[in-house]
């Protein structure tokens, strides 16, 4: 007897390459649950990824069209795909190093354009694949392989940044909030315009062992204890929110989706009603 969601996966290359207890597998599980619930035809999904452990979530494991691109550029590649195939669900899954670090500018501008992508940023606070170097979301004061005397930088609040840039849908959840995460992934997939979820996830191997969280279970407990809802966070001071993970929906707008505007321009040229 087999798991009913294996039909969405390239079974021949399972098990995944991810480490035991890694959150990437939970995100993949949540993703196919969301697709299954919404009854989305996987043939209509094009996954675009960058470089890093989280980019391996859909590519190659999700059995749909996949474009595994260069480091940081997945959103730009995906924009080209979406413009030409507006009816496809174009999904970008990549990590904090990829989307918030090297590719941060593409993320901001895709949100500003409100291009109809679904972006799941898997934030595990670290460059895991390369062995645990500091990332743009690593907390202040943490020791990593490239901050051997502690991290002197502050982490980027990437979901708030994307919300400020103008995305139609922005949320943050952790892998602990698995049912809320699945529901949020469904909302993102159904959003016209730029939809973004920061998924706080665990890397027990390259990050957890640096901060006393040795396995996936320890992270589940940590996320449970340190998360506060968006609503509650509004009653808390910046000091009180230090080290907390604010979870929930951060933005919801109804701005016109970018490729729709492009097609409107073509239509107006065709009918002579344009500027």
């Amino acid at each position: 007897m087999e798991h009913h969601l294996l039909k969405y996966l390239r079974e021949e290359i399972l098990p995944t390459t991810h480490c035991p207890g890694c959150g990437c597998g939970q995100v993949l599980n949540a993703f196919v649950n969301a697709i299954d619930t919404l009854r989305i035809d996987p043939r209509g999904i094009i996954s675009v990824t960058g470089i890093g452990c989280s980019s391996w979530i859909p590519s190659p494991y999700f059995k749909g069209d996949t474009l595994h691109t260069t480091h940081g550029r997945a959103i730009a590649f995906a924009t080209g795909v979406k413009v030409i195939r507006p009816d496809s669900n174009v999904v970008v899954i990549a990590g904090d190093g990829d989307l918030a670090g090297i590719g941060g500018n593409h993320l901001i501008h895709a949100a500003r354009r409100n291009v109809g992508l679904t972006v799941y940023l898997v934030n595990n606070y670290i460059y895991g694949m390369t062995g645990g170097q500091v990332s743009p979301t690593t907390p202040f004061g943490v020791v990593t392989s490239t901050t051997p005397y502690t991290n002197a930088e502050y982490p980027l609040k990437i979901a708030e940044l994307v919300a400020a840039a103008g995305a139609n849908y922005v949320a943050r959840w952790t892998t602990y909030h698995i049912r809320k995460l699945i529901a949020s992934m469904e909302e993102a997939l159904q959003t016209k315009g730029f939809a973004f979820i920061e998924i706080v996830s665990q890397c027990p191997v390259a990050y957890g062992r640096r901060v006393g969280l040795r396995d996936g279970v320890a992270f589940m407990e940590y996320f449970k204890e340190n998360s506060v809802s968006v609503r509650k966070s509004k009653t808390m001071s910046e000091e009180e929110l230090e080290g907390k993970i604010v979870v929930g929906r951060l933005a919801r707008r109804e701005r016109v989706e970018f490729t729709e505007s492009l097609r409107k321009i073509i239509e107006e040229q065709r009918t002579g009603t344009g500027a």
Partner: protein
Amino acid sequence: MIIIDERYCKGCSICIHFCPGKALEVSKEVNSRGFYAPKVVDQAECTSCKQCELYCPDFAIFIVEDAESADG
């Protein structure tokens, strides 16, 4: 009924952590791939809440409704 797919299990124990009953425990012996996989100690403890299935990073554990309970 809980099914464990040993081909994919990496022994992270997240399923055991989230099981609200006492249906699962860690095996005392490693499986063929070298991991301490979970084993079902009591199917009757399973409430089909699917926490294990939803939290599993590896599609290695899932719940199927067996014929008897479906009828009942």
